């Protein structure tokens, strides 16, 4: 999956579908990305997570950990696991057009 067209724009993605360049991402692409991994529809609660991840990535240069999303983003771990079942950090990063998270926490 080297290149893909999302919301009419061609973007580069890695073998697992994560964005190679987070700057390529636009909000309109998120629903389609979510559908690819079985999350449909994207609710406002999902968007809260996606927006926090995007903002934090801009500042810190890395995908925030689940702990950071809880402590800095005000997103409870329970909610995160309910919104993005079976792998919240990866799934949320996938939809937010960020690279695959590398942290262990």
């Amino acid at each position: 999956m080297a290149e893909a067209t999302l919301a009419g724009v061609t973007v580069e993605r890695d073998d697992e579908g994560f964005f190679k360049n987070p700057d390529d991402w636009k909000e309109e692409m998120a629903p389609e990305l979510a559908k690819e991994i079985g999350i449909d529809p994207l609710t406002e609660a999902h968007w809260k997570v996606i927006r926090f991840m995007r903002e934090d990535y801009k500042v810190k240069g890395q995908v925030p950990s689940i702990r950071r999303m809880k402590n800095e983003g005000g997103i409870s771990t329970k909610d995160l696991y309910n919104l993005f079942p079976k792998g919240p950090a990866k799934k949320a990063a996938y939809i937010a057009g960020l690279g695959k998270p590398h942290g262990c926490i």
Partner: protein
Amino acid sequence: MSSDKIEKVSIIISQGSLEGVYPGLIMANGARMEGIDVNLFFTFFGLDAVITKRMDKLKVATVGNPAMHIPTLVGMLPGMSAMATKMMMKEMDKIDIPPVSEFIEMIHDTGAGIYACKATVDMFHLKKEDFCEYMDDIITVGDFYEMSHGGQIIFT
């Protein structure tokens, strides 16, 4: 997703030192992050990690631990263990590894089960009230095997 993916793990934490507890907690949390079902089972001195009064007071062993790279006679000086613990906690915080109480709460919130070993609870004369609110139940070895059915068992 390949079909040979691990779907369930039971992790046993049997030691009460900081370095004895954290690997199991990190593996449990990491498994949940991958969508793997997790049961965490605390036994013997590992129980300290879910005992309210003790969970945030775990220490690094500075004696009998050759990988600390300090001589045993230095490791036994008063305050050495506390200092090593403080340093390690500081480094862990930098990479977002929480203190034990926060970590247990997080792991509980991921949907993992947290259990205490009945034999140890009886041996140490502990009560349910001694444990943090996130410890789900005190269970027997038999219960543990029953709930571990169909998964991998990891002993730490």
